[in-house]
């Protein structure tokens, strides 16, 4: 284990993160909401902590090994969840316990969007902005940002990004240099954010709301500046903008990159994962809209369509914005939507969940078994598009899937032990592990009523979900620490 190098990078990353306290200070001064002090205090504290890690080992310049990458990423996200909680904890309004502050910050960074705050509309603007900003940095990944702006990470950058990027295949580079790849991803992300901001603004939000919501939309986060989420605006135009950008942000960003560089949308149509993703969204929306209109939840056809579509996209991409109280919808719809969040977005997007590509591979293997029963001696590769998927990837998908289910089961039991009913516990684990946000039952509106223990379980779930379990899990295996 290469402790010194890991510490050095951890220190640098923390120092870099301390700079993100600056925008909320600007917001605070602009709106004159008297909340700039906690951000300045946090800035100083995080900078000092980073320097403390970095200074003693600043001359150690060994290359980062694969193992160190896991260590750095896992410990950075853990430390960051805590460091990001500082301003919330220090602020007078809202007054939060330490657990609540960490919950809120982790929920932001992992783009979950579950909240323990109520009365958002009355909070200082700087605090609201800060929550959205956490989601924005967590969306594309703060490590990816670090790789883009800290060129000295070199090959190590590859190891770090691999531990942070979601999806079963992590070796695809958009450009020969890892720094350039990270930059390209962030440029695409930034472009989407700006575009989304302009659309929201044009659709009738105030500039501040448009900025804040563009952050949490492209990050597939789900935080809002209002208790009623997107429903607060009551505008079909805004709903449509949100739907479009949630769908776009759930697509693999390398597809966006190729489309942007080649100025063509051919890549989207050829990509099997993208097609499956759109297919899932269409089917889900059709079922939801169909059920709603059959039961007659909404008297108006337009309301049915827009709410059905919005809620399907928002939950299936694991964003977690709401325009309606979907937990009160009839029949199996609430549970169906929670199930949809297990699918999530595409690999390499900002969405959570198990990812479309993994489900696609699992489904194809199911189909293969059926063909095998009919043709016992057939040689049937699992293919994506025109090329066969390597066995290692297929294996890894099953490994991931089984670990996901086991972790889910354990967390469900743990949640129920804290006294939650089964529906609440089930949806709370799904909402955190899939980085979704709102659940059902007690946690339909937020997680404020939960005990501290349950909140810490939820925090663990969010982190596990964002780092796709294995990055954290390897750290607690003896194999990892054995030399």
């Amino acid at each position, binding site marked *: 284990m290469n402790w010194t190098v890991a510490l050095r990078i951890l220190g640098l990353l923390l120092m870099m993160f301390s700079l993100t306290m600056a925008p909320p200070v600007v917001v605070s001064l602009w709106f004159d909401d008297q909340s700039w002090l906690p951000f300045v205090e946090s800035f100083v504290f995080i900078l000092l902590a980073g320097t403390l890690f970095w200074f003693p080992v600043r001359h150690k310049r060994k290359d980062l090994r694969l193992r160190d990458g896991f260590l750095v990423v896992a410990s950075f996200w853990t430390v960051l969840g805590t460091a990001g909680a500082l301003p919330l904890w220090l602020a007078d309004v809202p007054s939060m316990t330490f657990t609540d502050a960490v919950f809120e910050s982790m929920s932001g960074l992992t783009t979950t969007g579950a909240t323990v705050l109520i009365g958002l509309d009355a909070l200082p603007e700087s605090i609201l902005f800060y929550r959205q900003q956490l989601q924005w940095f967590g969306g594309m990944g703060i490590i990816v940002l670090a790789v883009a702006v800290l060129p000295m990470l*070199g*090959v190590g*950058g*590859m190891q770090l990004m691999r531990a942070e990027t979601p999806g079963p295949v992590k070796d695809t580079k958009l*450009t*020969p*240099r*890892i720094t350039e790849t990270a930059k390209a991803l962030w440029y695409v992300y930034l472009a989407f954010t700006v575009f989304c901001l302009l659309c929201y603004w044009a659709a009738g939000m105030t500039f501040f709301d448009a900025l804040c919501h563009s952050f949490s939309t492209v990050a597939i986060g789900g935080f809002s500046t209002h208790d009623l989420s997107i429903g607060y605006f009551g505008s079909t135009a805004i709903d449509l903008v949100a739907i479009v950008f949630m769908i776009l942000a759930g697509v693999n960003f390398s597809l966006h990159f190729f489309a942007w560089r080649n100025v063509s949308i051919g890549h989207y149509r050829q990509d099997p994962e993208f097609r499956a993703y759109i297919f899932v969204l269409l089917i889900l929306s059709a079922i939801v809209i169909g059920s709603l209109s059959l039961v007659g939840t909404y008297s108006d056809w337009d309301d049915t369509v827009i709410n059905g579509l919005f809620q399907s996209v928002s939950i299936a991409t694991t964003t977690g914005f709401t325009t309606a109280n979907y937990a009160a919808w009839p029949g199996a719809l609430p549970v169906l939507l929670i199930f949809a969040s297990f699918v999530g977005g595409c690999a390499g997007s900002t969405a959570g969940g198990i990812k479309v590509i993994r489900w696609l591979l699992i489904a194809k293997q199911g189909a293969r078994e059926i063909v095998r029963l009919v043709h016992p001696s057939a040689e049937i590769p699992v293919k994506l598009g025109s090329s066969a998927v390597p066995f290692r990837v297929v294996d890894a998908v099953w490994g991931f899937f089984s670990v996901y289910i086991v972790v889910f089961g354990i967390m469900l039991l743990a949640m129920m032990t804290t006294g939650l009913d089964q529906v609440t516990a089930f949806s709370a684990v799904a909402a955190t592990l899939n980085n979704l946000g709102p659940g059902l039952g007690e946690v339909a509106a937020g997680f404020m009523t939960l005990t501290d223990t349950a909140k810490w379980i939820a925090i663990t779930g969010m982190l596990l979900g964002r780092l796709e379990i294995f990055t954290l899990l390897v750290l607690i295996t003896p194999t990892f620490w054995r030399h």
Partner: protein
Amino acid sequence: MKILILGAGQVGSSAAYHLSREEANEVTVVDKRPEVLRELQDRLDIRTVVGHAAYPEVLERAGADDADIIVALTDGDETNMVACQVAYTVFHTPTKIARIRAAEYMNARKLFTQDAIPVDVRISPEQLVCEYIEQLILYPGALQVLDFAEGRVRLVGARADNRGSLVGQKIRALKEHIPNTEGRIAAIYRDGKSLQPDGDTIINDGDEVFFIAARQDVRVFMSEMRKLEDPVRRVVIAGGGNIGVRLALALEQNNQVKIIERNPERARIISEQLNKAIVLVGDAADEELLLEENIDNVDVFCALTNAEEANILSAMLAKRLGAHKVMALINRPSYAELVESGSIDIAISPQQVTIGSLLAHVRRGDVSKVHSLRRGAAEAIEAVAHGDNKESAVVGRRIDELKLPKGTSIVTLVRGDEVIMAHHDTVIETDDHVILFMTDRRKIDKIENLFQVDVSFV
């Protein structure tokens, strides 16, 4: 610079390693073996593409459209040539370098032209290694010989011993020992570590000393470091492969050459190619055979078979039986390190020899040569100054006015046929060949920029 490397073999991987370490380069490697590429991508900041190196579709995926240089280093000569053809016809790649092993292709006239097979630079590892060994045999006692400025200046590495007249004295004394020669000690390795030599450094017994001198002065310099050895007369070559035969052909006029080949069929074929050299059928690690052929009188024993382990063992055996100097062809750098300090005098790494010459062709602008010193602790670079005072950042300037990156020093200038040792007040003129030493290879693009002629330069 965007560089496309085809083939992730030994030379391909180390070319990728050296090139990707320089910040300005973007390297993509193509190979058919995904597991090799995965391992390579774990170590290096490069992009990899799996596929056949000559297929247009694979090249396109690898970014041939905007590549500046394509370097074809796959196992097959034919694949390399076709890949260059495709790059030229389909992607209009400006520079195409290919490794061509077969002498039959290399010697063919009119083959490598733009309207036939458009390979701009052909690299033959066998030929390079052969030339390298020839140089070592020409200067007995030398560990490494590198040519600069078309051979007018040579960089020679030698191990100092007590019988050299400068050993035990300060470098400053060199001027009094040999007043009429031009040369300079560029680097010293003591116990495997590099020293920065200055006038007061004392040369010890056992130091590895690298000096630069005009070609005609190399022998005089060598005598300062160690007792001058007699010219080589008797050479035994183990292994009748391409390198062995080439070397035998080059040496047989002036030396007594024996070549040992295990395969009788192959032995017959090479005996027909050679004129004076004697071909022996047998095992190079056969003690009886070696003794029979008077191994204790042999000046140089070269183990040049394909198997590096066999080369090491047969060279060690020959050394113990009394061969004066033994060389072995060793690919793995770790093996070379192991044996060079002890039982084998010189380990020849075909990889490193090839890389040096390969990288020289990849260089941008006027940096014409980059060679790694033994053990890779420093690089020797040759750059040509062009333009006038207005266009170039070096021409018409004193050496101490140049903005050189840290750890870099200018050692020698070659102006026409004249060799000038650099001092802080030496002024560089146009068309000078400047030879520099640099410890950090990553800064090489700074040197490239420095020597580039820029019309807008003020």
